[in-house]
């Protein structure tokens, strides 16, 4: 049968219902339903105490994903006066407080893999989806029509259109890495996590109360970004703790 007709017949609408007649095993459901509570949710937890803003996670993310299944992440006019690039991860810098007691805070930012992602239901083609098995939010590049509506529907600006391929791209949580049996067990982590020299990025299942990420969120007050929009972001941030050693002398007086 012609491929597009096949896709139409096996669209997400019929998924999970069709095909069960010949197959006795329950059909594997790839897509999570809207508002479904998943048993597993992979996520990053970012420790703002130790991020030094070195951008190693930015470059390692770009390197892995431009050469992996999500790539190439094209750069336009890369060596010209006005370059423009596609990235899944950025490290920003903020300054908090009044001089002289100011803090410089480096703030890594990527897709938060929301438990209730507003970008997924708005997608007209079903190219954007949340995986039922581990909660990773992904884009099927072969189905994306490049309408950019999902990017409008993300309050965090986590999605970036690849201008050359004209499809929406976003952090995949290195889905092509974390399950790869050919990699040594210790390497089955997102590229950004592996690259971080200060261990500011933790990776794991936030639904497993004993995972490293759940413990960090529980014990160190992990929080979500823009909680006012109730996206239930899976990625969490660990707030800065002011210790005696980190207080500047002027503020102690």
């Amino acid at each position, binding site marked *: 049968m012609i491929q597009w007709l096949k896709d139409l017949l096996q669209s997400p609408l019929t998924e999970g219902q069709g095909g069960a007649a010949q197959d006795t095993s329950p059909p594997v459901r790839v897509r999570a339903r809207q508002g479904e509570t998943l048993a597993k949710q992979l996520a990053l937890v970012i420790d703002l105490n130790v991020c030094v803003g070195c951008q190693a996670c930015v470059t390692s993310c770009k390197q892995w994903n431009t050469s992996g299944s999500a790539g190439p992440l094209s750069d336009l006019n890369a060596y010209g006066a006005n370059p423009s690039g596609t990235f899944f991860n950025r490290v920003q810098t903020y300054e908090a407080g009044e001089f002289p007691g100011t803090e410089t805070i480096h703030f890594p930012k990527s897709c938060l893999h929301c438990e209730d992602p507003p970008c997924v239901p*708005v997608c007209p083609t079903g190219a954007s989806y949340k995986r039922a098995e581990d909660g990773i939010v992904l884009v099927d590049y072969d189905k994306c029509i490049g309408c950019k509506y999902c990017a409008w529907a993300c309050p965090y600006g986590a999605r970036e259109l690849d201008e050359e391929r004209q499809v929406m791209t976003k952090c995949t949580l290195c889905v092509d890495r974390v399950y790869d049996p050919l990699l040594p067990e210790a390497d089955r982590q997102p590229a950004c996590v592996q690259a971080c020299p200060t261990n500011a990025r933790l990776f794991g299942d936030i639904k497993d109360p004993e995972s490293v990420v759940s413990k960090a969120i529980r014990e160190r007050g992990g929080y979500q970004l823009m909680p006012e929009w109730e996206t239930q972001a899976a990625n969490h941030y660990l707030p800065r703790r002011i210790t005696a050693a980190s207080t500047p002398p002027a503020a102690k007086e």
Partner: protein
Amino acid sequence: MHPAFSILFFTTLAGAAQGLLVALALAQISGVSMDSRFVLQAITLGLVLLLAGLASSFLHLGHKMRAWRAVLMWRTSWMSREVIVLPAYIGLTALWWLALYTGADDALTQALAWAIVFGAIVLWYCTAMIYACLRFIQEWAHWSTVANFLLIGLASGSVLACALAASSGQAALLSTLAPWATVATLLAAIVRWFSLRRNSSLRPASTLQSATGIQAKRLVQKSMGMSAGAFNTREFFHGASQLALRNVRWAFVLGLFVLPLGLALCALSSTSTWPWAWAALIQAPALIAERWVFFAQAKHPQNLYYQVVG
């Protein structure tokens, strides 16, 4: 938000076409005597505008050959619903044209005229809900978005219908449509004025503090993490000055509502037909300006993360 001209043209062309068709359908339903040749020509113009809008929306897509896939997610996506309703509405309009052309019996043409009115409302609703359903774009997430799309479409379409009726000497039709067009324009002006006032008094629910979770009174961005441009620095910023935004706002209030209303009163109080043609001509660029402001005024919370290059 960055106003994309493909969307500006699509929403204004389709909106005016729907308004024109609704005006003609209501005239037919209420039994106004119309020259059948004129009606067929006016419906053809509506069809052309709708098709031009559809073509314009295609230009917005990165992958045009995959556009058919956009019908799949109608259960959750307003864009998907619109992609289904728009071609259906074009088909319905073509059917209405065919019924009038072949001189089908009254019951059928009346039923089709009712379907044209109802279909236009559904299409306006789908188009507006694409924007109104994005809860964190506070300028859009409000009933006035739906009301504006509907009323501005009605107003522009009925003014166009009056201009067509006036220029081809359809006196009976014009005397019915003229008060209708005036009231629609007045209502559209009132609701749009209300939404402009609401927008200027909105307080953003997201702050740099909630966006980063850093609870300091004074918090400023020192670097957005890159010195070059990116999708995020283009798609969500209109790039015009505040002065330009204010000027375009005044220009559309003048061109879309004030001048056409003045011309409508001029036409109602005299027998001259030229004011309607002028009103339609002035409204055309003002419609684009209105949609431009609709996008430019919408503040996306992601912009909090992209303030300072460094």
